[in-house]
């Protein structure tokens, strides 16, 4: 019988701690698949965040460095400068990237640091138990916005990708995707591949924002979660390429190769 | 022997350069030297000063609470520093900008018309080194050649600047008997 699917080579054989239906596990799998396909496992370095994905290094069978909450951008900056030929990416949630680490993110992007950020946006603080995130939608109920997020008290859901896209030439590529069905998962994989390729080609900062279900804290089942992303979340955070300065053929060819 | 001098004036008068040149000259003569400039917000108000200590042995504190000598380039500096100089010490003042005498009788004061002399050689900015030349002549703390040699280190490669400043040093030096 022909084997049509196997566990990605660089995904360690340990059970993941993520909740059922969580988007993190899908993205983790996509990354390990890509690392294998692009044959970069011996030069890839991941910088996991504080949050649900803090234990990523238990799953990835390539080098990882823990970061303090929000500081991935600063650590990745220095690592990439010291090791310019490695493929370095931060993996950050909305609290990490868009609240406590906003400054690190913006300035690394603005300097055009040649690393990639994978930004998991699930509109909530997952690990700490479902508090309001900077990306929580209006009227969305969380444990710290129990009657729903409102403008005057909480401000608006922050659109980091759009904000970062306004930065000058340092920012090469930003795309927002999701992981709620097979086509969207495929798109996410392609976007991450492109982002990696962009740093390998020394073009600039790249970021892929993934709208990711958190059924546990949304108090929905996985299916309802996907529907909520599709119907509500994408209204505030529309999918698609937000910025792309790559007219670079090499990138396009490499990405379209499969 | 340990001698401390404060150089003071307003920003742009080259007060720090004056002290620095003196410090470098002393180092060239193998003396133990500390040079401490005023810094940060202190220098934003337009005043500048620095303290140079020279000694044969280790210098405990680079700060001078009662220095032997004070060189002041403008009136506000005269007012803020004249009380610090120790009894029997010497106050050097730039009489081009300071038209009063120090209010103390227990110190010697030497007026040098450094501003006008600098105008005389065609560059008002050299008043600082004219002052320093006179200071060196009077105090005899370092050899004038060490100071001139020091300029070579400080302005490495900038021939014109070195020439202009050594000229100023010499003029100041010769202005006192």
């Amino acid at each position, binding site marked *: 019988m022909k084997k049509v699917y196997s566990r990605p080579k660089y995904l360690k054989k340990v059970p993941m701690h993520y909740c059922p239906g969580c988007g993190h596990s899908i993205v983790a799998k996509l990354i390990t698949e890509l690392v294998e396909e692009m044959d970069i*496992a*011996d*030069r*890839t*370095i991941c910088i996991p965040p504080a949050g649900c994905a*803090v*234990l990523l*290094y238990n799953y*990835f*069978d*390539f*080098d*990882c*460095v*823990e*970061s*303090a909450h929000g*500081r991935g*951008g*600063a*650590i*990745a*900056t*220095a*690592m990439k*400068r*010291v*090791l310019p030929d*490695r493929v370095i990416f931060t993996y950050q949630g909305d609290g990490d990237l868009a609240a406590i680490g906003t*400054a*690190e993110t*913006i*300035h690394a992007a603005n*300097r055009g640091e040649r690393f990639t950020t994978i930004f998991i946006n699930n509109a909530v603080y997952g690990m700490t138990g479902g508090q309001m995130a900077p990306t929580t939608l209006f009227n969305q109920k969380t444990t710290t916005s129990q009657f729903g997020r409102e403008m005057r008290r909480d401000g608006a859901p922050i659109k980091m990708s759009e904000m970062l896209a306004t930065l000058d030439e340092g920012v090469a590529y930003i795309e927002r995707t999701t992981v709620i069905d097979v086509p969207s998962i495929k798109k996410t994989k392609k976007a991450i591949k492109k982002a990696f390729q962009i740093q390998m080609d020394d073009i600039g900062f790249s970021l892929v924002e993934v709208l990711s279900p958190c059924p546990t804290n949304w108090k929905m089942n996985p299916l309802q979660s996907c529907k909520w992303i599709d119907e509500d979340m994408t209204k505030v955070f529309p999918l698609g390429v937000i910025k792309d300065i790559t007219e670079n053929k090499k990138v396009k060819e490499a990405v379209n190769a499969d | 022997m340990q001698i401390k001098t404060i150089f003071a004036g307003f920003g742009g008068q080259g007060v720090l350069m004056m002290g*620095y040149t003196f*410090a470098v000259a002393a*180092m060239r003569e193998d003396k*133990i*030297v*500390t*040079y*401490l*400039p005023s*810094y*940060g*917000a*202190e220098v934003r108000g337009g005043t500048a000063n620095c303290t140079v200590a020279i000694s044969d042995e*280790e*210098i*405990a*504190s*680079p*700060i001078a*609470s009662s220095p032997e000598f004070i060189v002041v380039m403008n009136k506000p500096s005269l007012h803020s520093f004249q009380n610090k100089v120790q009894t029997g010490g010497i106050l050097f003042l730039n009489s081009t900008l300071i038209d009063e005498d120090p209010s103390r009788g227990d110190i010697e004061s030497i007026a040098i018309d450094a501003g006008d002399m600098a105008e005389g050689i065609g560059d008002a900015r050299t008043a600082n080194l004219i002052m320093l030349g006179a200071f060196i002549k009077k105090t005899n703390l370092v050899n004038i050649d060490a100071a001139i040699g020091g300029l070579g280190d400080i302005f490495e490669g900038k021939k014109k600047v070195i020439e202009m400043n050594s000229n100023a040093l010499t003029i100041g030096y010769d202005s006192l008997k």
Partner: protein
Amino acid sequence: MRGNTVVGEAAIRAGCTCYFGYPITPQNELPEYMSRRLTEIEDGIFIQSESEISAINMVLGASVAGARVMTSSSSPGISLKQEGISFLCGDELPAVIVNMVRGGPGLGNISPAQSDYFQSTRGGGHGDYRTVVLAPASCQEMADLTMEAFDISDYYRNPVLILADGMLGQMMEPVTFENYKPRELPKKDYIIDGAKGRPSRFVRSLILNTKDMEEHNWKLMRKYKMITKNEIKCDEFMMDDAKIAVVAYGTAARIAKGAVKRARKEGLKVGLIRPITLWPYPSEVIKKWARSVSLFVVFEMSAGQMIEDVELSLKGSSEVYFYGRPGGVIPTPMELVKIISSQYYQKGF
């Protein structure tokens, strides 16, 4: 050379290739100098970061990638760096951190002060950890200790703090860089540079299993014990027949030395103990002198912080007197001479 630039040049000569920092007075000459020098040397990396927090995390990144790295700041900025310093200790990563202390608390002022002693020696961030703290008292020592700091830091895989102040940073004294004798250092087998030809690895301080976390803490403590055994430095001046010992470090020790000399001229039997490592603290030296010294005068440019270490060293066996000036005031040697002689005669020595 100015103290601040001395530190910079010493770092470069010790093989430091990365500097990250954020401007703050009174240490700006250091990042300015590094920005020039690190552009000149191959592989040199200089970034003016967006914040102190970012700077210390860049330090972590460069360190984990295997580079010799330094950051510097002054008191409020060092407070911001504490989280990162705690991570460096938890991760067991080397780094050299310079604090040109200014008067505090809060924004305080930019005058020389010694009010960050507790923060530096107790481990200013969260968790059970220590940083090695070196306190130079001259430009020459700034050079020697900065160079040695990199070796200590690499040897024990622990951050080293250089504690000075605006006066030492601004001051100029002749300096030689020839005193440095590089130590033999273990290979950096922990760095993260891509799993090429070896199994993948990770660096982290998160240890959820409490038993393992406890063991990690004990491991750190064993390391700190080793540092305490090997790295203590202390200077003693005119102590042999001293009845009063002044204990002071850094700028205060310079002033104290002047005072001791003057007091000696007046015939008073006074000496100076100058801790050079503030952590580990030279407790044994203090204890040793307790046999012949009748009074320890602790002299600090703070409201009294190091005095706790002196008292801990003596454990009540000798009398301790404190004289300090907080807030960025620089005391004069004469001030201290007066204190010494009044104590001297009061005690009837």
